């Protein structure tokens, strides 16, 4: 190899902040120890005030929006949180939680492992940001026209519209039922209503709502930023993931199926 001249190595001396800043938390130091907080406020609200006068769902909303929600928004968010609290035993994230449990992995790892899987693009938080941006981009257009414009793409890839698609070859009935429960709580000109019209337009090609799409629509309607969508979805599914993992944590390793050698097929073309 020829000798090449490279840039001389030296620091850029970039100006980094002296302190981190936050709009969320403020802590008043105690008189005797500057490391110990005496009063803690979130977005200006004293934590004890929130504990006594606000509900969990209101404080949850506050964390991500910086303001307490209206009663209608709190009701919509709470109802969605109930729907998302348990992704069910067959979701890949729940199955990962079960493997953590039955494998006798430290129980502290159930959530990091399973919520990481819940961050995937298939039925997970990984598809929420693009679904929220899809609603931003298209929800002012006629849903019939949007369905028509995606017709060719959907033939090649049924997941071309983020948040919508096929579930085991069909439309997901349960997601559609969740939407029906949420619609009365949602304003008429909402992403959720528009998404329902889109789902109706896509029904003839067997494509419908997927759960991340439902969450993305409600998150959009509640004003959450698309970038927060993935984490919110992971967070809201966490209780069910943890519960399923813990359910198997005290059971023997034989409590989950183990594929027999006879049913394990290696289908490798040839040596690399």
């Amino acid at each position, binding site marked *: 190899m020829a000798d090449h001249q490279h840039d001389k190595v030296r620091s850029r001396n970039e100006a980094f902040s002296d302190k981190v800043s936050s709009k969320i938390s403020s802590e008043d130091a105690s008189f005797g120890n500057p490391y110990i907080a005496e009063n803690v406020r979130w977005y200006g609200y004293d934590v004890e005030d929130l504990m006594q006068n606000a509900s969990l769902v209101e404080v949850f909303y506050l964390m991500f929006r910086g303001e307490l929600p209206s009663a209608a928004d709190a009701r919509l968010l709470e109802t969605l949180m109930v729907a998302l609290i348990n992704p069910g035993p067959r979701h890949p994230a729940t199955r990962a939680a079960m493997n953590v449990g039955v494998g006798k992995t430290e129980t502290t790892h159930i959530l990091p492992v399973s919520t990481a899987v819940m961050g995937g693009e298939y039925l997970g938080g990984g598809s929420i940001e693009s679904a929220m941006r899809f609603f931003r981009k298209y929800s002012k257009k006629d849903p019939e026209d949007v369905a028509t414009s995606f017709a060719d793409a959907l033939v090649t890839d049924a997941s071309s519209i983020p948040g919508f698609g096929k579930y085991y070859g069909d439309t997901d009935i349960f997601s559609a039922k969740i939407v029906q429960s949420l619609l009365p709580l949602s304003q008429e000109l909402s992403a959720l209503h528009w998404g329902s019209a889109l789902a109706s337009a896509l029904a003839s090609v067997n494509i419908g709502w997927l759960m991340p799409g439902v969450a993305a629509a409600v998150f959009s309607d509640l004003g959450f930023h698309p970038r927060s969508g993935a984490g919110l979805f992971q967070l809201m599914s966490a209780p069910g993931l943890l519960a399923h993992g813990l359910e198997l944590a005290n059971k023997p390793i034989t409590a989950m199926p183990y594929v027999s050698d006879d049913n394990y097929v*290696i289908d490798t*073309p040839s040596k690399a």
Partner: protein
Amino acid sequence: MKTSHDFVQELDARRGKIISQTGGWFPGKGVYSHGYSMLEELVGEKSYFQILILNATGKLVSSELAQWMEAVYGCLSWPDPRIWCNQIGALAGVARTSAVTATAIGCLATDSRAYGVMPLMEGVGFIQEALLRHRQGMSAEDIVKDATSARGGKPFIVGYIRPIAKGDERLEVMEQVSQKLGFAEGEHLTLAYAIEKVLMEKFDEGMNINGYVSAFLSDQGFTAQEIYQMFAMLVASGVTACYLDTKQQPSEYFLPWRCDDVQYTGPEKRSVRDAR
């Protein structure tokens, strides 16, 4: 077109069954990876990095290339907790998690658009695309002009320019490693150097280790996705080191923050009653 009935039948045929395109373990018979018997053909015969690359790409590479990979891993994982992934490991040490937790989450942090493993895909994408255009007659200068004009005239090309410092001390080390192992300079790397020359002349900016690795491994025939997969646990050892450094010290000693070290910029003090 496949009906949902067909799809259900396909799924039913796979219930309780695994069909692997990679390998598996059959007690008493053997362990297989990409057609190789791991215990007869790989373990003790091939290096760990040859096996790592085989599992990440399906390709069994030469021992020289595996040694090159091992060397570059050493260039990309340092025990300095100022680096973001390493600081996560250090904070895991403060919090007294397990070493596996610290190391795994430090590696997870490198799935970043700004540093770590993910930018390799963009680096490889850039140099492979650049070579295609170069073969069609575009000069290195034109490639730089094109890339910088798309970024408002700034030379922000993945694989060139480095955060925190200018220049990259790892380039010369890896060039020596490549030479020692007998690798010739390939087309991607030659173009990468030509691009660096233009950037140095026009912007006083050079190639970084991402640019070198992207070009070198492109010359070895890897795709961007394969290269990303080969480096999945790249920073593991540096993170473990930073974890241990803080775990062995009192918990509150690592970069302690006073309450007023976090500058509050949110709303003034208010009450829930006023908000109702």
